[in-house]
């Protein structure tokens, strides 16, 4: 029996143990911004990366002696691993503002407050939403660097064929138009979808829909998703999915191209109206310049007409990993990319992302494509919102999405009970994360 025990223990050990390493300590902040070679990691890849490198060259010209090596195609997993290994870059850019809740309280990204105080950079230069997603519980460890806002893209040719001259402004208009714009082939399969409401398809996540219903996420420090606003949003989404037929949409989606490819369903005319981020303007210019389309703010719930013009905003964040040995030089680059109006305008022109300071939005250097202007106005709208930053990263959004996918497919039918369950689950996650914080 002892032999059996030993053999089973060894087998179990050999196959199931996962290694987890230890943390690393932070280094002291320097005060001297003399010559140095620094490194910046960015998730951008070409062609966006080329634009960023040009702007970084401008920075180098302004700061002789500081040389920046820009490395593209990175992500948060790599940044975290590098911080733990002590070999993180001096400046890191992330597409996931949700992770501010991890980077700031842990000190993994250095507190930028002292640098901003020293150089007189006031956070009021950023609009409200980007200000929110770059700080956590009073610690600002990141600056916003370009924002993503969401709106409605519509195919002018398809709308004209159906007799429409203007885009929908309310959800009931969107629904009616979506139905009229939908085309099926002789076998009943979807050929053109007026508006595709399928959950998690392309950009269809609750965070992006919520602002059109005035839906919010938290009540104080508790999750508050069981609200009439979210219920209305989800009921509408479900009714439109049911109109198409859930399985029909699954088959349509499986045959539609990848979101970030030339065969994107909106770009190829398979979808007439579409929720998407501002970056699509640049993608269309590059991939399908022949597409006759326009953009507008996303339609709003019929009883929330005053919200028209607003939308969801998130964006890139930029900060200084705690392991940087050239924090002062790194700060100069972060400050340049995060606050210099000309730099932001140049980045925006090249990448077609929204510049993130109030000044840069008015910069004469800004040369937006006509379809891009919509997103500048959405960004500046007083009702535009973002998702709250929490210690649990994107876990709250993903827990919500998990329930939504079941409700919209019909496998869960109790909407209120389900949403109450989601709130309970998120509160438990928050409590579990809070309980683990060092006193």
């Amino acid at each position, binding site marked *: 029996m002892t032999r059996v025990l030993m*053999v089973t223990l060894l087998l179990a050990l050999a*196959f199931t143990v996962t290694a987890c390493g230890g943390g690393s300590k932070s280094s002291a902040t320097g005060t001297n911004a003399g010559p140095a070679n620094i490194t910046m990691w960015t998730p951008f890849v070409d062609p966006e990366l080329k634009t960023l490198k040009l702007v970084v060259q401008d920075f180098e010209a302004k700061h002789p002696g500081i040389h920046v090596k820009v490395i593209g195609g990175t992500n948060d997993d790599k940044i975290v691993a590098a911080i733990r290994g002590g070999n993180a870059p001096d400046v890191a850019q992330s597409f996931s503002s949700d992770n501010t809740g991890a980077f700031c309280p842990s000190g993994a990204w250095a507190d930028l407050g002292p640098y901003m105080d020293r150089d007189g950079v006031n956070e009021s230069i950023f609009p409200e939403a980007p200000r929110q997603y770059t700080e956590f519980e009073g610690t600002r460890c990141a600056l916003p660097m370009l924002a993503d806002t969401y709106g409605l893209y519509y195919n002018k040719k398809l709308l004209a064929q159906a007799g429409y001259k203007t885009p929908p402004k309310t959800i009931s208009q969107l629904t009616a138009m979506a139905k009229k714009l939908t085309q099926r082939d002789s076998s009943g399969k979807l050929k053109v979808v007026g508006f595709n409401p399928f959950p998690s398809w392309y950009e269809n996540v609750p965070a992006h829909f919520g602002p059109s219903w005035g839906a919010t996420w938290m009540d104080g420090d508790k999750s508050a998703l069981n609200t009439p606003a979210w219920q209305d949003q989800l009921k509408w989404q479900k009714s439109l999915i049911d109109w198409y037929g859930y399985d029909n949409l699954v088959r349509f989606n499986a045959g539609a191209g990848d979101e970030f490819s030339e065969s994107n369903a909106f770009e190829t005319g398979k979808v007439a109206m579409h929720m998407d*981020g501002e970056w699509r303007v640049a993608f269309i210019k590059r991939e399908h310049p022949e597409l006759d389309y326009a953009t507008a703010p996303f339609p709003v719930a019929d009883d929330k007409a005053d919200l028209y013009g607003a939308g969801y905003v998130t964006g890139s964040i930029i900060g200084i990993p705690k392991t940087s040995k050239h924090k002062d030089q790194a700060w100069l680059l972060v400050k340049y990319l995060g606050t210099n109006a000309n730099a932001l305008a140049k980045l925006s022109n090249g990448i077609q992302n929204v510049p993130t300071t109030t000044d840069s939005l008015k910069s004469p250097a800004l040369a937006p494509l006509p379809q891009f202007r919509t997103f500048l106005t959405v960004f500046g709208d007083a009702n535009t919102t973002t998702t709250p930053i929490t210690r649990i990263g994107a876990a709250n959004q993903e827990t919500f999405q998990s329930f939504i996918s079941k409700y919209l497919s019909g496998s869960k039918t109790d909407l209120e009970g389900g949403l109450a369950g989601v709130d309970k689950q998120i509160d438990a996650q928050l409590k579990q994360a809070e309980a683990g914080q060092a006193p």
Partner: protein
Amino acid sequence: MSPWIVGFTVFFGYPLVTTAYLSFTHYDLLSSPHWVGLANYRYLFTTDQTVWPAVRNTLWFIAIAVPLQVFFALGISIMLSRARRGVGVFRTIFYLPALAPPVAATLGFVYLLNPATGPVNTILGKLGIEGPLWFDSPQWAKPSLTLLALWGIGNTMIIFLAAVLDVPRHLYESAELDGAGYFSRLWYVTLPTISPVILFAVVIGVIEGLQYFTQAYVAASVAGGSASYSAESANSLGYPEDSTLFYPVLLYQQGFRYFNMGYASAMAMLLLAVAFGLTFLIVRNSRRFVHYQAPGR
């Protein structure tokens, strides 16, 4: 110090002790672990509502896919052991899929089983049958993964084949003299003789089933697509409707996506305990049906 001690300490001892320690801490990967006692285990057993569905998915895979893999590998190896011509070619054909990297194999299956454009549904459509939604359906996602697992049984098949070919001929001859037919010989000679190998395949299958991750992760990410440009990482783990959210996928999600490594370590310790418990039960109960040949035959 002998080399195995070094290897054991570095690759098993240290990670095991560290994981056990971290399971009693809150550890966000970025700051130092903070001792929380049994809080992670309490959360695991009493609060986290995602654990049970993940456990159920994993148990489904162990109860359905693992036995099917063993039967399928055994069936193929018995057929191959009887082949007269082209044995080498058939062995190669059945073994080859085992060489395909899991990610590539999964991508291939997601393509083949694409409900709209995949060759399988296209052929079914020509026959007048509307094919299922495969990886896009909560009912079909796990069976689709099972098909993928069955396709890749080459390694088990080769081990079974070696065992089947190793059954002493005189046992068959004696059975034949006693008037045993093909199925009697299979049941009373082949299976008892190779039963230790079957036990091995079952134990390894169960442990691998408990750790089932790569194929589920890739299939969900590819079939699910995601709003990934701004959110960066795939948010489609478990797609569709958590039907592929296996226990190790949940563990990964907690540890590396939610910065909750202390809790993920507690989950890993539970996985270790369950792997140990199941293996122990299988090995202990195997004496009733596993036949070990006397040494020096």
